C-alpha cells in the first residue's frame, strides 16, 4: 500500500466512528441523563408542586400550562412523573446494590471457606432461589409491611442467590490462580490478598450485571406499587400512578400512556446500557 492510500484511509476514520454511534444507545444515554437530572433536581424540570390539587382543572388534556395534562385530582402529571424519578431510581439502585454486596459476601465466604461452610451457604442459596422471585418479595412484605426499607431488603434478598453463585464460582477459580498463590508466597497477609486480589476479580461478573439488575429492580418496584404493595398513595410513584390511571383510561388516555411510557422507557434505556456494558466486558465492542 502506498503512502497516499494510507493517508486517505486515515481520513475515513471519523466517518467510521460516526457510523458506530448507534442511535439506540445514544437515545438511552440521553434519556438516562434526563432521568438523573429529574432525580437530582426535580424542581429544575417541573415548576409545579406534584401534590398540589386543583378541583377546577380535573383531567385537563396536555397543554402549555400542563405539558402532560392533569390527573383525577387536578395534579400536574409532568411534575408527578418528574418527582417520582428519584424514589424509583433510589429504590431500584439500592436494592440492586444490596443484592450485589450481600451476594458477594456470601459467595466469597462460600468460595474461600471450608467445604462445610460452602455447602451450608449454597444450600441456603438454593432455598432462597426455590421461591419464585416476586413471590419471595411478597412474602417478606406481608411479614413486615411495605416500607421503603422492607422493599429494598425484599428485592435485595431475592437477588442474593444469583450474585452469590457467580462470586463463588469466580472465587473457586481464583483460589488456585497463580497471582494469588504468588501473593501468599510473598508473605502478604490473607486479608490483604483477599481484599486486593480475590475480591476485585471475583466481583467483576456481578458488577457487569449490575445495570441490568437495576433495570429489573426498577421494573419490580413499579410492579409492586402497581399491585398496591409499594409506596402509599399521595406520593408520586410511576407504578401506583398507573394503577389509578387505568381506571380513567376511557376519558383520559394520556394518563395511562405517560406513566406506562416513562416506566417502559426507563427499563429499556437501563437495559440497553447494561447490554452494551456486557458486550464490552466480553470484548465484543
Amino acid at each position: 500500500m502506498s503512502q497516499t492510500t494510507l493517508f486517505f484511509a486515515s481520513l475515513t476514520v471519523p466517518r467510521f466512528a460516526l457510523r458506530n454511534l448507534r442511535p439506540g444507545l445514544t437515545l438511552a444515554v440521553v434519556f438516562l441523563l434526563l432521568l438523573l437530572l429529574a432525580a437530582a433536581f426535580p424542581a429544575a424540570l417541573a415548576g409545579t408542586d406534584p401534590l398540589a390539587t386543583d378541583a377546577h382543572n380535573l383531567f385537563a388534556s396536555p397543554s402549555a400550562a400542563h405539558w402532560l395534562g392533569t390527573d383525577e385530582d387536578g395534579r400536574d402529571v409532568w411534575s408527578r412523573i418528574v418527582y417520582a424519578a428519584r424514589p424509583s431510581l433510589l429504590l431500584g439502585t439500592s436494592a440492586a446494590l444490596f443484592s450485589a454486596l450481600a451476594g458477594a459476601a456470601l459467595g466469597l465466604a462460600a468460595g474461600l471457606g471450608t467445604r462445610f461452610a460452602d455447602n451450608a451457604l449454597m444450600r441456603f442459596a438454593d432455598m432462597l432461589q426455590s421461591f419464585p422471585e416476586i413471590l419471595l418479595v411478597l412474602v417478606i412484605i406481608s411479614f413486615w409491611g411495605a416500607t421503603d426499607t422492607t422493599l429494598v431488603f425484599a428485592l435485595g434478598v431475592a437477588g442474593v442467590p444469583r450474585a452469590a453463585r457467580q462470586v463463588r464460582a469466580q472465587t473457586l477459580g481464583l483460589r488456585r490462580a497463580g497471582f494469588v498463590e504468588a501473593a501468599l508466597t510473598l508473605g502478604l497477609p490473607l486479608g490483604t490478598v483477599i481484599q486486593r486480589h480475590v475480591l476485585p476479580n471475583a466481583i467483576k461478573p456481578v458488577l457487569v450485571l449490575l445495570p441490568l439488575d437495576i433495570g429489573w429492580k426498577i421494573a419490580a418496584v413499579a410492579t409492586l406499587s402497581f399491585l398496591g404493595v409499594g409506596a402509599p398513595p399521595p406520593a408520586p410513584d410511576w407504578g401506583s400512578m398507573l394503577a389509578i390511571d387505568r381506571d380513567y383510561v376511557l376519558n383520559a388516555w394520556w394518563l395511562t400512556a405517560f406513566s406506562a411510557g416513562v416506566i417502559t422507557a426507563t427499563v429499556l434505556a437501563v437495559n440497553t446500557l447494561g447490554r452494551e456494558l456486557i458486550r464490552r466486558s466480553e470484548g465484543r465492542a
Partner: protein
Amino acid sequence: MSGRYRHLFWRLGAGALVLWGTVTLIFLAINLTPGDPAITLLGGPDALPTPAILHQVRAEYGFDQPLHVQYVHYLGRLLRGNLGISYRLHQPVAVLIAGQIGATAMLAVSAMAVGVVLALVVALATAKRAPWLTSLFAGIEVTLSSVPSFITGLILLLGFSFNLHLFPSSSTRGWTANILPTITLALPIAAVLAQVLRRELEDILEQPFILTARTRGLSEAGVRLGHALRHALVPALTIAGIMFAGLLSSAVVVETVFNRQGLGRMMADATTNRDVPLVLGIALLATAINILVNIAIDLINAVIDPRTERS
C-alpha cells in the same frame, strides 16, 4: 434399580430436602420476627386482632410450648396438608388455594403452549437469515422480555378491549376472556425462548452434519425441523421450564391487570391485607412446583439427549 430410576430417586430426595429447608426458614421467620408471632400471623400490630382470634391462633400454633415442640407440630400439620387458616377470609388456606388453582393452571398451561409455539416458529423462521430480519426480531424480543408484564397487559387491554372492543376487559368466563391474559403471559416467554433457540440454531446450522444433510438433498425446512431443532431443544427446554415455574409470579401481575380470579390475584390481595398464612401457603405451593418442574426438566432432557444422563 436402573440408573434412571436411581437418579430420579436422588433428585426427589434432594428436592424434598430443599422444601424442608424452606419450611424451616419460614418457621424461623415467623418465630424470630420481633414481637408476638401470633400477631405476625394476623397481619402485624396494625391489624388490631380481637382477643378471641389471638387466643385461637395461639392455641392452633401452640406458641406457649418450647420451639422444638412447635416445630415438630408445624411439620406434622404441613405433612398432613394443613397449610393453616386464613384469619382474614376465615377459611383453611388449602381450601382457598384449591378453589383458585384451576383458573391459574389453565392460564399458565395455555400461555406456555402459545409461548413455546411462537418461539419455535419465530426462531426456525429467522435463524441465519438476512441480518436486518434477524436484528429486527432480536430487537422486538429484547423489548418484549424487558418491559414489565403489567405494561404489556395494559397496552393489549387498551388496544384490543377499549379501542377495538374485540375482547372483554375483565372476566374469567368464555374463551375470548382468556386470550389477552394468555398473550400477555406468553409474549415474554416467547421472546426469551426465541432468543435462546435462535442462538442455538445458528450454532448448529454451522455443524458438519447439517452440511451432510443438505448434500443428501434435504430441503431447508427438512434440515431445520428434522436435524437442527432437536439439538437446539435441550438448552431451550431448561429455560422454558424455569419460565413455566415462574408463571405463578407473572400470574400475580396479569390476573390483577385483567381483574381475573386465580391464585396470583389471591396472592396479591393477601399481601395487601397482610394475610400471612395465605401468602405462605401460596409461596410454599410455588416452591414445590418450582422443585418438581426442575426435576421434570432433567428427566425430559435425559430423554431428548441421553448424553446428559451419564454426566
